[in-house]
């Protein structure tokens, strides 16, 4: 059953050192506020799963919280490279990280398999691709009906998944709309799902019957954090802060500049700051 908690308590009660955790959101609805709370609490030794590590994992990796990253596209979308993640991979700074690299197709279907309670995802993929040579989790199975060789990857089963969504109802049901990405699958694949939302409304009566909704009994905790996806966006609330993504390229390029930025913008502030960050974007 979903409990309405402060962001501090929602993170403290659900994320433990050494956990396998997914902070999901495919460009849209990236749970930045939740990740910043994890950084403030210094919860480390994490295995981070995310299709696109993006700025959110660049920050967690740069702060030394990750021991392993499972991913499929480690870029700053539309801008370039993830410089903190590169520094960890190329130079072991601030610590070496293990990487497990997939394609988007594999990652999305591994979440789907996790949500389905299956041990693996089976699909037509990785043909001729070198990733299969460097990731021992990429294997193949033979179709028992046609004999076709298909790719197989293990299901994602995170200890915790964090997502951001538009609305929760008073009962703790969660509504997601727009680019819905893999959030439903990532939440249902996890042992514990924690959701930050823009707002709480009394109920979802009268809305479209096919909306993407996670029932309250699939969620452990909900924290209300307006603006909590920034610099990602929340469809219907505020747009993507593309300028912030461009700026991150400079901030993340230098170790000291990064450390100072994290001190000022993450460690020294609380989740309430997110509402003011999106105010100018609306």
């Amino acid at each position, binding site marked *: 059953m979903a409990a309405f908690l402060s962001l501090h308590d929602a993170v403290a009660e659900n994320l433990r050192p050494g956990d396998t955790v997914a902070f999901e959101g*495919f*460009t*849209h609805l990236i749970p930045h506020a939740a990740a910043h709370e994890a950084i403030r609490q210094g919860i480390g030794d994490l295995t981070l799963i995310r*299709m*696109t590590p993006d700025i959110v994992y660049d920050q967690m990796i740069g702060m030394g919280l990750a021991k392993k990253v499972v*991913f*499929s*596209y*480690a*870029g700053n*979308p*539309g*801008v370039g*490279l*993830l410089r903190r*993640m*590169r520094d960890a*991979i*190329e130079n072991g700074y601030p610590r070496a990280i293990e990487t497990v*690299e997939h*394609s*988007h*197709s594999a990652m*999305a*279907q591994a*979440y*789907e398999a996790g949500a389905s309670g299956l041990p693996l995802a089976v*699909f*037509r*993929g*990785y*043909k*001729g*691709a*070198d*990733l299969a040579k*460097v990731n021992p989790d990429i294997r193949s199975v033979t179709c028992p009906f046609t004999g*076709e*060789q298909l790719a197989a990857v293990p299901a994602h089963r995170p200890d915790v998944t964090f997502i951001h969504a538009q609305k929760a109802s008073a009962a703790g049901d969660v509504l997601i709309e*727009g*680019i*819905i*990405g*893999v959030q*439903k*699958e990532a939440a249902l694949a996890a042992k514990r799902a924690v959701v930050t939302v823009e707002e709480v409304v009394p109920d979802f009566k009268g809305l479209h019957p096919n909306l*993407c909704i996670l029932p309250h009994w699939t969620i452990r905790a909900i924290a209300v954090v307006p603006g909590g996806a920034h610099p990602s*966006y929340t*469809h219907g609330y505020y*747009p*993507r*802060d*593309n*300028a*912030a*993504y*461009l700026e991150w390229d400079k901030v993340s390029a230098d170790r000291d500049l990064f450390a100072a930025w994290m001190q000022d913008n993450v460690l020294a502030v609380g989740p309430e700051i997110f509402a003011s960050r999106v105010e*100018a*974007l609306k």
Partner: protein
Amino acid sequence: MSDFTPNEMMTIAAARALKNDDVCFVGIGAPSAACNVARLTHAPGITLIYESGTIGTAPDVLPLSIGDGELCETALSTVSVPEMFRYWLMGGRISIGFLGAAQLDRFGNINTTVIGDYAHPKVRLPGGGGAPEIATSCGEIFITLKQAPRSMVKKIDFFTSFGHGEGGDHRQRLGIRTKGPTLLITDLAVWRPDPETREFTVTSLHPGVTREMVQETCGWPVRYAASLDETPPPTGLELGTLRDLQARTAAAHQRKT
């Protein structure tokens, strides 16, 4: 129209390759610009699909990321990412995949993963994203990139996305049923695979481009088709459409004050 840059010629030549009834999986960057110029000029009916799940999108400005809100707001439908990769891509419903590349070889194999050794890379690039399966599941693949010796190389460091492998029937030998790379558009030329060897050969030079310019910026010995065309220069409509799109995009991505 004579005053245009090589990059503009590249984007416009790529746009011309797309047809009104194509269903196109769009990579970010140069492919995205080309696909939207096509949509705004000769191919208004084209279906553009981005891997964030947006089907039939018609953005007014070019998205910075594959998941900008504009893509969803202007799309016919937005599906989940697992559905995108299963029903639409793996299901064989997408005719063209349009990709960029960090490194490309003469058989259309693409590297966007690492420069150097995978375990100890000289440069860690973003990786494949959707490309490994786009390259093998779309009906055919168009590639666009700016020519440079470090990007058009004899041997790529990592096979992120499989093109024609070692050439010939390598795709069929791996059980891949789609055509693979059928077109390469650079800032200097249009290239198509040789029907037998599958090696990219130049079929058309852009206006003002010489064979020497093509060779200087390519890491393998360039081959030319028996009859070599000159790419028609951009029309006023094509160039105006591209420049308007880029101006709108630049304005939209600046910080609002």
